[in-house]
């Protein structure tokens, strides 16, 4: 698929090495944080330039400055040889700078076509040319090789498909410089392949691509050059051919790659929870159990029924059949409340929609499950509220100026730490982590995995859901594979290879076998 795309779109004649955008001493300070220390960097026209770095390393800040969302504190941006103010998003777009964000920022209640033409609708005498727009949009989508309809509501598509539409939208806007911020975080492998085809095609058309990702294999698959940010500083830029995973990880975190997947083995204790022939909306007839000291991994594509299964176990949704046994006894879990009382904790899939109260303080988010415990009768103990929040912030090394900073002001990885941290204060016997490392950098990932070990050593059990195979593969003691709402296979720790598991999850021959998934 990749090679054909490149054949169709031969590289255009560009002066090689021409600089399209140059940063000179670009700097950003927020009250209390120096988010980006003076950065000098030149982007070449038509290159795919990856930017990697931990959470809070300054990647998001850089994007915001380049897209005019935030004003810079000092420094210059030189666009095609001339200084650019980049004071507003509009100015950036007018120059041809666009961004595709990690989480889709489009209108779910409009059609795909309406979203693609949002802001530059085709109208004749003030009347929208709806059918013409749908036709045009469909043509663009078909051209890109996405198998998606243009006339449906955007909200009816999966997150991954919406991401593809967002990318397609950016291509129709005379874009010369396109920034992708973790675009594959919510994509299946197939969707990611489609996106890569699109990116290569854009490169072929001379568009400069900035590709921000935590996934090293994507960086090596796509990029020409890679820049590493750490703590707001540009550590270095490398040609992709002259570097490797180990060097980049080391530049990012000063730590070697072997230390990331931190796996400790414990002797398993008694069974904590058992699902017997559990069915519900989105999954059917699932049986599995979790023992103390065990990580049970659930692997499958997004929409395979894994999240539905655990949220039903957690009482969020009603089961339609089957039994739940807690420590050997059958229990009724009719609400989240019941689940929490039994000793379950859920760190849900979407931080923004399910995990956090974004416009409330970090401290309130951390304490939310335990307010009952830190209240005496009527009143909250202010001292305990403070102490509990500060303890989690310190233990998990959550980067926040104070516990009263709003959760929305933190970077993705630090937000994820809040989602997990609130359950550490509460305590539980069964921890369910649904995609705990989506949009999280290598350093935070390693911290989260280390935390798993700490929980297991205290006799807890863990259900780990991931769409990222190496994660469940390296960590799970028992690995269940889900496909279309059914549990289709079960493996022990490293007893099957990646290809076999993938085939089971996809039920189609994998086009690209091998380690890099």
């Amino acid at each position, binding site marked *: 698929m990749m090679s054909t795309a490149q054949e169709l779109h031969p590289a255009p004649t560009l002066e090689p090495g021409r600089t399209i955008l140059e940063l000179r001493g670009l700097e950003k300070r927020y*009250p209390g944080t120096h988010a980006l220390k003076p950065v000098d960097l030149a982007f070449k026209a038509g290159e795919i330039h990856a930017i990697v770095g931990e959470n809070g390393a300054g990647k998001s800040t850089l994007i915001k400055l380049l897209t005019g969302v935030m004003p810079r504190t000092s420094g210059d941006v030189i666009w095609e040889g001339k200084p650019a103010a980049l004071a507003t998003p509009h100015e950036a777009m007018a120059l041809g700078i666009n961004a595709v964000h990690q989480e889709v920022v489009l209108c779910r209640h409009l059609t795909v076509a309406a979203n693609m033409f949002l802001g530059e609708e085709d109208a004749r005498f003030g009347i929208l040319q709806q059918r013409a727009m749908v036709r045009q949009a469909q043509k663009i989508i078909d051209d890109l090789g996405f198998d998606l309809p243009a006339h449906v509501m955007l909200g009816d598509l999966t997150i991954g498909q919406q991401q593809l539409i967002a990318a397609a939208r950016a291509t129709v806007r005379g874009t010369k410089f396109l920034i992708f911020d973790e675009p594959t975080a919510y994509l299946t492998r197939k969707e990611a392949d489609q996106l890569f085809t699109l990116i290569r095609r854009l490169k072929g058309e001379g568009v400069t691509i900035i590709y921000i990702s935590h996934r090293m294999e994507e960086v090596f698959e796509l990029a020409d050059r890679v820049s590493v940010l750490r703590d707001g500083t540009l550590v270095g830029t490398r040609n992709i051919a002259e570097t490797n995973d180990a060097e980049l990880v080391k530049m990012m975190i000063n730590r070697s790659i072997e230390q990331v997947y931190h796996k400790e083995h414990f002797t398993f204790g008694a069974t904590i929870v058992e699902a017997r022939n559990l069915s519900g909306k989105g999954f059917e007839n699932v049986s599995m159990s979790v023992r103390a000291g065990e990580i049970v991994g659930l692997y499958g594509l997004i929409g395979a029924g894994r999240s539905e299964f655990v949220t039903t176990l*957690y009482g*969020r949704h009603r089961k339609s059949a089957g039994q739940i046994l807690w420590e050997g006894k059958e229990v009724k879990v009719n609400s*989240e*409340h019941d689940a*929490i009382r039994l000793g379950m904790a*859920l760190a*849900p899939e979407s931080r923004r*929609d*399910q*995990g*956090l*109260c*974004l*416009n*409330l*303080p970090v401290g*309130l988010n951390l*304490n*939310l*499950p335990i*307010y*009952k415990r830190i*209240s005496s009768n*009527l*009143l*909250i103990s*202010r001292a305990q509220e*403070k102490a509990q929040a*500060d303890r989690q912030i310190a233990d998990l090394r959550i980067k926040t*100026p*104070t*516990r*009263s*900073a709003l959760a929305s002001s933190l970077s993705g990885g630090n937000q994820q730490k809040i989602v997990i941290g*609130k359950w550490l204060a*509460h305590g539980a016997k069964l921890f369910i982590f649904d995609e705990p490392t989506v949009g999280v950098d290598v350093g935070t990932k390693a911290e989260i995995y280390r935390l798993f070990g700490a929980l297991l050593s205290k006799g807890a059990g863990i259900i780990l859901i991931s769409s990222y195979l190496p994660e469940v593969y390296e960590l799970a003691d028992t690995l269940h594979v889900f496909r279309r709402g059914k549990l289709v296979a079960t493996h022990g720790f490293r007893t099957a290879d990646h290809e076999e598991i993938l085939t089971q999850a996809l039920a189609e021959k994998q086009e690209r076998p091998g380690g890099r998934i």
Partner: protein
Amino acid sequence: MSTEAIAAERPKRNYNALFGLTLLALLVLLWVILSVATPSFASANNISNLLRQGSMIAILAVGQTFVIITGGIDLSVGAVVGFATVVVAMLINAGTPVFLAILITLLVGVAIGMFHGFGIVKMGLPPFIITLATLTSLRGIGLLMTNGNSISINNDAFQTFSRSSFVGVPNLFWMVILVGIPAFIFLHHSRWGRYLFSVGSNAEASRLSGVNVQRTIYMAYTLSGLCAAFVGVLLASRIGIGNPTQAEGWELQAIASSVIGGTSLFGAVGSVHGPLLGAFILATINNGANLLNVNAFWQRIITGVLIIVIVYFDGLRRRGK
């Protein structure tokens, strides 16, 4: 969120306290200007009158704020006030002891609030719709009960209450304090207060964190209904009649007070002291405009402009942070 937070909350505390102080400064400024501009403003009589005027909206605004913090709205409060005047008047005239009559009226307010909670939680109706429906139907029920007439309350003691003062301060204003202090403790120092904020911010996240979202919503509307019924009792005492068409438009004044006091209609932002100050700022403007012989029609326009200006500056301040 509260004014006396702890050291580490410094940035936020300053900012909230500052807004509270700005409102207080605005109120004092208005009072100074009016004292200079009109001879009668600073008289004990007028100040008492002003406090009486502002008190009832202030209590409504507190209940309203609880609801708005959860991301909802309670349009019914004015109608509940009118309906409560009828209920309390009928009970008293029927010979029910005043204490019991008041208690029953308050329970009616609670029941109306529970009904709102039921409509939102169980029937899935938007708050705007269910409370709008109550607004219109409660007025209707009240009119049916009274045949469209006013009911004169034949109990002097009941009426004297709202006209009397205690240590120089009108009893009605004492009622604001009676409601305000528990409300402040509830919102800023109890876990239920935290839950109101968390539900308003993200109901799903709160639910998954073990917060009983349904109960929280019931609680907010019940408290709003209770405050409204209480104001109905106070109004009946003040005007000496029960009349279902009283308190027309008070829901909007309560919402305006709340918003002027810094409550965000998107939920998860608000306090107790803000709406109280907001209500007295509105009362001062109306009172001052009367004294200055400003056309009553202008008063409405001034209120509208004030809402825009204050909320605009509040928005600037938030963004500036």
